[in-house]
């Protein structure tokens, strides 16, 4: 029996034990040696929420946490067998189901009743130690956390006693100093480090010990990889009596950070330099709109010294009309974050100190520092650029005016061939609107049959970069008629040769084209009519053609004769020669037949013709030749229009021949005017007389000789024209003759019977 139990018994004498148990604030049960409960006080019952009935016997054990039941039972039995005082900690379930830690121990042993019941009873008190238990757990946890902080800190953390012996050093310390836990424990700096180093460490230790307050220091240590700079704090640890029992230290290696700091300073310095030397003006303002910073360019651009601007509102740099707008916009931005202007490259008007307004381009940036916004503007003076732009615009305007006033249709296209501009004339001509001609819209005006070739040609030009040129029929809006136009375009290239643009023109050449066609027809007509004048050249070729076979024939014949004379003509040689002679003879006659066909042609188709009309026609045909040779024509035609019955073409041929002869006769004349007189008359017998008179070189004495075939005074003539002309006129029942003109030149005249008379 222990002293406690004894005391309780002593105190219990004379007291009602049951009352006592009920009134103490602890949970108490009265247990029999077998562990079964005989009684539990109210506090117990209230805590566990069980009735006395339920707790009786071994039922109370159900309130103990299952994990703790076994330990509890062992302890109980041990106590019974050894007589050791019973005490154990276990969790007991509260009425709400939560377990609380209790210290359960024997409070009082009640010896067996002398008279009645036989057993020893034990009063067991259960003390709620939940609070304490949890505090211990928390402490333990906090210790672990602290340990984690220390161990994981990038700084070195250590603890030394007053004598400088290390009590604790964190991982970083050991890592940085290359020391193990075993090496360091209980050692002093002297034992751990070189003397020089140790004395540095100990000096600060002494300071702490002497001053009794935390100190900060910077120290340099030499390590394997060079010099390291550290900053540290050392502080005294005081016991409850206020005496220093240990020194704590936190040391941080700042070598790396120092390096970063200098890099940071370098960047800042560079930025400052950029801002200071920037040709753009850099101005910062705060949330109140006051200028906080201005760079030196402010002087150049605005005329303000940077210092005189500090504190002034930014609106100083704006013309009056913008200030209100700025303030409103700025306030709205601060309130709503809504920007009233674009912050990147906005063109605005600024105000110089001298009151001059000028255009600027402004970009803004915003920075929040210490909760305050700072706005920095980059302001560029763009007066020069504006002027250049204006100049360009002006020149563009001039060019535009030029393209609009130029009496030609102009257009341009972008590199891929899409039309992007047409001048007004194009729009007027085609009746399309500016929008309609864009891209390939102009194709609408191209004639259906030309669209494909036109678009092919344009595509080819665009892809090859070759100049474009195409004739096509274009619908003219004015009369809804398709007219021939020609479009030409050239590419404009940049310095690298890349095509930037195409510039093109459209020319209406319908009238020209028609004139061209008329001219072509005239020329065809001339060619047809002048067949006779080319007779000379033709004859030369005829002569050649006829003479070739004739030459072969005579050669072969002569050769045979020679051989025959020698009596050496062999039959097979003769045969071959004769065969060739026959072949060449046939060839010659074929040529002759062709000539005859040409000269005789089809029989003349006669009709009644107005001779004056024929004269005019032929003069028109020869007009080019007359003009070229500077020959003046004087016509003297009958008032009436005498009709003749003749083949129109043959008559034209004769007249043209006479006129051309006249022109040629005058080509060498330089000392007098070249005049060609053409006259129509009616003679006494009613015949029509036409005469062509020139002021040329004349005929000489024999005026009839020109009519002899192959007579010519010309280098390139065959002398056939007049002879043929004469036969043509004679075929018509007329006559053709020549006389000398006075004082110069010749007169060729022919007569034709008037229509109605039979030739």
């Amino acid at each position: 029996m222990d002293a406690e139990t004894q005391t309780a018994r002593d105190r219990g004498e004379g007291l009602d034990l049951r009352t006592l148990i009920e009134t103490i604030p602890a949970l108490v049960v009265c247990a029999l040696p077998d562990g079964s409960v005989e009684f539990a006080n109210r506090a117990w019952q209230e805590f566990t929420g069980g009735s006395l009935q339920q707790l009786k016997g071994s039922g109370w054990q159900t309130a103990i946490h299952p994990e703790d039941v076994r330990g509890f039972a062992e302890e109980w039995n041990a106590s019974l067998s050894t007589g050791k005082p019973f005490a154990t900690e276990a969790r007991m379930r509260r009425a709400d189901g939560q377990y609380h830690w209790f210290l359960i121990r024997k409070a009082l042993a009640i010896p067996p009743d002398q008279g009645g019941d036989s057993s020893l009873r034990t009063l067991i008190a259960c003390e709620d130690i939940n609070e304490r238990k949890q505090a211990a757990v928390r402490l333990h946890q906090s210790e672990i956390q602290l340990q984690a902080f220390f161990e994981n800190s990038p700084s070195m953390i250590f603890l030394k006693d007053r004598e400088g012996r290390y009590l604790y050093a964190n991982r970083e310390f050991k890592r940085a100093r290359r020391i193990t836990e075993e090496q360091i424990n209980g050692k002093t700096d002297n034992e751990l480090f070189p003397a020089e180093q140790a004395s540095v460490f100990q000096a600060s230790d002494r300071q702490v010990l002497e001053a009794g307050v935390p100190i900060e220091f910077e120290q340099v240590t030499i390590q394997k990889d060079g010099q390291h700079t550290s900053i540290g704090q050392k502080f005294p640890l005081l016991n409850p009596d206020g005496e220093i029992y240990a020194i704590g230290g936190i040391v941080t290696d700042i070598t790396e950070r120092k390096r970063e700091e200098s890099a940071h300073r370098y960047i800042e310095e560079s930025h400052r330099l950029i801002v200071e030397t920037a040709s753009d003006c850099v101005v910062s303002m705060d949330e109140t709109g006051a200028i906080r910073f201005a760079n030196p360019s402010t002087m150049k651009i605005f005329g303000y010294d940077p210092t005189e601007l500090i504190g002034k509102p930014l609106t100083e740099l704006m013309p009056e009309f913008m200030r209100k707008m700025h303030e409103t916009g700025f306030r709205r931005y601060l309130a709503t974050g809504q920007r009233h202007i674009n912050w990147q490259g906005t063109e605005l008007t600024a105000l110089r100190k001298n009151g001059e307004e000028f255009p600027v381009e402004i970009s803004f940036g915003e920075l929040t520092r210490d909760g305050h916004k700072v706005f920095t503007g980059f302001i560029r003076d763009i007066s020069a650029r504006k002027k250049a732009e204006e100049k360009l615009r002006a020149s563009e305007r001039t060019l535009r005016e030029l393209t609009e006033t130029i009496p030609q249709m102009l257009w341009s296209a972008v590199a891929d061939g899409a039309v992007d501009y047409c001048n007004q004339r194009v729009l007027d001509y085609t009746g399309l609107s500016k929008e309609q001609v864009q891209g390939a819209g102009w194709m609408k005006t191209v004639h259906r049959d030309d669209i494909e070739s036109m678009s092919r040609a344009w595509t080819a030009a665009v892809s090859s970069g070759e100049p474009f040129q195409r004739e096509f029929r274009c619908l003219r809006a004015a009369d809804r008629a398709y007219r021939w136009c020609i479009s030409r375009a050239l590419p404009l290239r940049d310095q690298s040769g890349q095509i930037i643009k195409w510039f093109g023109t459209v020319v209406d050449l319908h009238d020209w084209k028609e004139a061209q066609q008329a001219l072509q027809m005239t020329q065809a007509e001339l060619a047809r009519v002048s067949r006779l004048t080319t007779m000379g050249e033709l004859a030369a070729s005829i002569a050649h053609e006829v003479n070739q076979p004739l030459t072969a024939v005579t050669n072969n014949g002569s050769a045979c004769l020679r051989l025959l004379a020698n009596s050496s003509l062999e039959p097979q040689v003769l045969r071959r020669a004769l065969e060739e002679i026959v072949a060449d003879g046939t060839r010659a006659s074929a040529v002759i037949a062709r000539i005859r066909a040409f000269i005789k042609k089809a029989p003349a188709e006669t009709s009644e013709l107005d001779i004056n009309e024929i004269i005019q026609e032929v003069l028109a045909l020869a007009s080019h030749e007359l003009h070229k040779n500077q020959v003046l024509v004087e016509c003297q035609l009958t008032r009436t229009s005498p009709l003749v019955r003749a083949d129109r073409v043959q008559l034209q041929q004769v007249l043209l021949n006479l006129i051309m002869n006249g022109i040629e006769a005058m080509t060498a004349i330089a000392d007098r005017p070249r005049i060609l007189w053409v006259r129509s008359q009616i003679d006494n017998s009613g015949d029509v007389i036409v005469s062509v008179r020139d002021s040329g070189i004349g005929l000489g004495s024999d005026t009839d000789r020109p009519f002899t075939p192959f007579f010519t005074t010309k280098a390139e003539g065959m002398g056939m024209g007049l002879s043929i002309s004469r036969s043509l006129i004679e075929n018509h029942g007329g006559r053709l003759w020549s006389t000398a003109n006075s004082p110069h030149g010749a007169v060729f005249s022919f007569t034709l019977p008037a229509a109605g008379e039979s030739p």
Partner: protein
Amino acid sequence: MSAAALVFVIDDDPSVRSSLKFLLSTVGLQAETFESADSFLRRKPTDIPSCLVLDVRLPGLSGLDFQRELAGRNICIPIVFLTGHGDIPMSVRAMKAGAVEFLTKPFRDQDLLDAVRVALGRDRARREQDKEVEDLRQRFDTLTSREQEVISMVVAGMLNKQIAAELGTAESTVKVQRSRAMEKMQAASLAELIKMIEKVKPSKEAS
């Protein structure tokens, strides 16, 4: 007529070509025919006496142009022109440029053969002359330069004594050189030597 002669016929008409060849063959003249000036030019030059019978009207180049071109190429071959229809200016031009004859087709066989004969004669003479000059030149080239020097002074009419003085040698040396040169040139007399040198000199100077 000598067989060692060749007549070239250029005419675009095959009948004319073959009949001419036939005609020429009757007098023992060998002929080669060509249908164009170009095909003739492609033939390699012959070294026997030859002449050209050429139609004025040729495909492409005219006969007169071709005559000019031959002259330009330094090809001296006598030409007999044929023409389908000749005019006077044309024939004058051809003759002035050295044509042997200008015949109008169809021509008399004898006229052609005469013309060809004349042409070949001219060519033969020219060739002989060329050959003689060539021979002389070869002989002249066998002389030493001193002999040549002496000879040209002799031809210029200088006396041996003068030559010796001019060249700074003995008169007897000049005499020896002179007689050796005469011997090499195969000149029987001074007069002959002078003629020879005259023939050699112009081409000598030209080359």
